[in-house]
């Protein structure tokens, strides 16, 4: 994490986060809530955002980071314009969703949890989207793709590149 991040917070975003911190700070155990709101505002939780939260709530950065890394719902890396989510739940996994994930990683040249350099795609894994009958399944944004085979991946992704 030593690389300088490209993080930028617009005045509006900063103001929004400050407001969330202000209204939550007197509530004990509000850190989770603030992190969720912050992720909603910025899409992810870079060091700059976590520092603002730590300072605003009067707790240490190591505590904020500990919570942010404990829950898989929080992301420390920016998300792409299109968010790919591959189901690794039992049914999908048995049907070979790990191969689907591998193929996506290969096509995009990034690992699960990362974002492409052009900011177009990010990949995550999830556990069950409730479409086990269609296993293996992935979602791109709010669209569900089922009964996948690795060779289908490239064509699907190309649709989003247009």
């Amino acid at each position, binding site marked *: 994490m030593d690389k300088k991040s490209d993080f930028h917070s617009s005045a509006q975003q900063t103001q929004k986060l400050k407001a969330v911190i202000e209204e939550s700070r007197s509530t004990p155990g509000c850190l989770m809530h603030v992190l969720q709101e912050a992720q909603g505002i910025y899409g992810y939780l870079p060091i700059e955002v976590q520092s603002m939260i730590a300072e605003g709530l009067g707790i*240490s*950065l*190591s*505590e904020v980071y*500990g919570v942010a890394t404990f*829950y898989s719902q929080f992301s420390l890396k920016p998300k792409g314009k299109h968010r790919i989510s591959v189901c690794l739940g039992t049914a999908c996994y048995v049907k070979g969703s790990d191969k689907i994930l591998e193929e996506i990683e290969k096509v995009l040249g990034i690992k699960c949890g990362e974002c492409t350099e052009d900011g177009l795609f990010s990949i995550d894994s999830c556990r069950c989207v409730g479409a086990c009958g269609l296993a293996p399944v992935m979602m791109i944004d709010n669209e569900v793709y089922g009964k996948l085979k690795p060779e289908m991946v490239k064509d699907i992704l190309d649709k989003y590149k247009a």
Partner: protein
Amino acid sequence: MEKMVNLKINGIPVSVPEGTTILEAARKAHIEIPTLCFLKDVNCVGSCRMCVVEATGARGLVAACVYPVAEGMEVRTNTEKCRQSRKMTLELFLSKHKKKCLSCERNHNCELQKLSLGYSVDEDRFKGEDFVLPIDTSTPYVVRDNDKCINCMRCVAACKKQNVNAIGPIGRGFNVHIGSAFDRPLSESPCVGCGQCIVACPVGALAEKSNVDEVWSALSDSTKKVIFYTAPSVRATLGEAFDMPIGTNVEGKMVAAIRRLNPHAVFNMDVTADLTIMEEASELINRIKTNKPLPMFTSCCPAWVKFVEQTYPEFIPNISTCKSPQQMFGALLKSYWCEKHDVAKENLFVVSVIPCTAKKYECKRDEMLGDVDAAITTRELARMIKTAGIKFTELPDEEFDNPFALASGAGAIFGATGGVMEAALRTAAHMLDGSFEVLDFFAVRGSKGIKEATYLVAGHTLHVAAVSGLDNARTLLEQIKSGEKKYDFVEVMSCPGGCVNGGGQPTLSDSVRNSVELKEARAKALYSSDTQNELRRSADSPVMDVIYDDFLGFPNSHKAHEILHTSYAPHKII
């Protein structure tokens, strides 16, 4: 009167106050329940499951360190079920533990090793993925090897107790590890180097960054003159590393042992503690008389100084400009002593033996670089003595080398909280009023976190405070900031109880640490050496006369400022 609860532990009746845990109650029955994550005054979370016992009224095994006793309860601590559970717990710890025990600093002094032996574990019962994390060597004072870590959280709790919070658990499940925010190196965290995490660690995941090799090579270099000096509290604790009773003053044996390592000389750091007092007391009087920023804070503790620079830079003008005794000694040797003995500075190798890890950082500060060549902890000195094959306990008592042997009792008590304050008051009061003869300032003694007192000296009302533990220091700074409290002179030591409880002191077994009041027992050795000393006031030490007459002129002289004083600067952390 508090309500008493009657219970039986392994059939032995015990009566303890309500709210007592099974662990504490068992001690009353002279039964020790094994622990790992528990550490008295530091960590009590019931997470490691080593202290599990059977108790009537409870379902399954319970963690004795957090489970309260109940009337009529029957506890069994040593059943087959308990033993099997503990053994499995240990084997699970070991499945992920880097078992490089032979060369581990904590070999023979490791809680995990001791328990593993006791429970006849199979260290390879669970073979799993190796967990390889980088070793953090980013600071000059501590090394963290997380592959040895068992995630007991004792270091995190120690850091939290200091309210520094430089480290915490990161990640989840198998990937949990201890580190600084954003997995940055410790050197980029708010860490101040107090080393309380090291003495809290039950295994070898944390250790000081050793400078022993540099000292050995200087000792075998014929072109170097090596000079050792030892901090006041080292003599109060070094014996522990050789199984001597806690609180034994081993000054004579310590000197004899160091002499057998063949340095050029062994000096007494109590001497520059006295010198610090001469300078600091003069500075205090000067500040009072010229309306300079008050309160004046002591500057002996480098972790405290770093804390102010990082967290409360607005108080930098309040820190005494005096270097610490360690740095004063180095600076004095590299100027006065070299001049007097016609030795080139480059050929002198200065080793300070200290109870502290932050001192390793202090001697690497730009402002004072070169004064001290190596700072080694009490633990490192003990290791050197053992490596050299010196039978410490059989040694005769020997005396420090002249001219830096004789010091006042005021210098000795520097190692305990309140000691620097008391030493300074003895001399400052006398400087202000020659007829002031009080030598004992009882109100600033004892291991309480914040001690306050008011003294009337030569028409000046002095409000003083002695603080130990950085959480207490933070509280006090906030009170000063808000105007709630007003002081003239404040002593701060970062470690709870002061240097006797420093991060470089011998690591004692949990069994001892959980049953002994360590800070008090160690401090006693220093206060008894103070009362036995005919010289109680730094200013009365003939060595001070020699140093000032011969070299420095007078306290706070231009030359003294050049050699014995320093400066501080704000230091931004992430």
